[in-house]
């Protein structure tokens, strides 16, 4: 699947205009959170109501006929995109959170970071056997967090249909990591290198 997908349901010109608008609304912040990293900042997209709406619409158009029953969003920027998609397609929204934030009984999935490890949690009972799930985050880098999310959903009996992100950082090979789990990835844009003015 190519990184910058054009949706089957729209004519290609309209989708690519929307994607151009989305891409130009993103901002790159050099050396955050540490030297050498070109941070892809989605907050400027959220300041452009048309570009933000187009972002949600592109995801909704792709999934609305796919019988998705759960949108799982990864804390915290997945919470910005996931709920609007869930509302538009009539699916449940399930937050996947850092440890000790969810108040009820949880299942946890540990995953490795560059240095050390972290953990993602989901409420027991949020997802059921037979649920068809979409996982949403703002960006895919190495794919470590998305793989942890996939494991949580599959342990609860859901089928993960796809992972969806606004941005992909191709050099970090997250797509390949997901593919090795048998899961497809859909993204709107690739990461940019130049800091925006």
């Amino acid at each position, binding site marked *: 699947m190519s990184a910058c997908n054009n949706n089957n349901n729209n004519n290609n010109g309209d989708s690519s205009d929307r994607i151009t608008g989305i891409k130009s609304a993103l901002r790159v912040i050099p050396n*955050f959170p540490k030297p050498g990293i070109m941070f892809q*900042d989605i907050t400027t997209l959220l*300041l452009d109501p048309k570009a933000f709406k187009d972002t949600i619409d592109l995801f909704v158009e792709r999934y609305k006929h796919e019988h998705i029953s759960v949108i799982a969003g990864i804390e915290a920027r997945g*919470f910005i995109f996931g*709920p609007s998609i869930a509302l538009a397609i009539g699916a449940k929204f*399930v937050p996947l959170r850092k440890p000790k934030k969810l108040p009820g009984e949880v299942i946890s999935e540990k995953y490795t970071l560059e240095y050390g490890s972290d953990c993602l949690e989901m409420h027991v009972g949020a997802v059921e056997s037979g649920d068809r799930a979409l996982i949403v985050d703002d960006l895919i880098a190495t794919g470590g967090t998305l793989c942890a999310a996939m494991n949580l959903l599959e342990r609860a009996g859901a089928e993960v249909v796809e992972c969806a992100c606004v941005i992909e950082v191709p050099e970090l090979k997250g797509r390949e990591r997901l593919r090795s789990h048998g899961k497809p990835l859909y993204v709107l844009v690739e990461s940019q290198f130049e800091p925006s003015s």
Partner: protein
Amino acid sequence: MSATNSDQSVTDDRVARIASSIRVIPDFPKPGIMFQDITTMLLDPVAFKDTIDLFVERYREKDISVVAGVEARGFIFGPPIALALGAKFVPIRKPNKLPGAVISEEYSLEYGTDKMEMHVGAVQTGERVLIIDDLIATGGTLAAAIKLLERVGANVVECACVIELADLKGRDHLGDKPVFVLVSST
């Protein structure tokens, strides 16, 4: 909000469903606290949609140009409201999360202090702002968010929350700023 009798009973039906979709978890995060868990409401697409609709209906004619959501549960409710109103969404975050230049506001916790941050340039002087969080307790977080927005010259029109913990009298800590809630819990 003014309503005919039939509008009012539709509103009440929606609020009743929303209220019953919220789960209470005793003794979280510590003994004695009855935690109001909105994640079960997010599992009920009708209740979640009704929640958003009730806010959008209230603010649709109020020329709101910015919806500011407090991390992290404000990120769940704020963006759908912003999208429906055609407004900007501005995340208000814990320290060191936002990558660009920020302004910070410190606020008190039961023990110690915390800080919230907003990107410089996200909100312009004179913009009409709605602040969203899932719940108002003591009002400390919302009071800090109001200060942050007023420091950049914004006009905070109202704070809106799904739930109010009425006994904690958070409303009294917000000065002249009104708070609109869907469900009041004691």
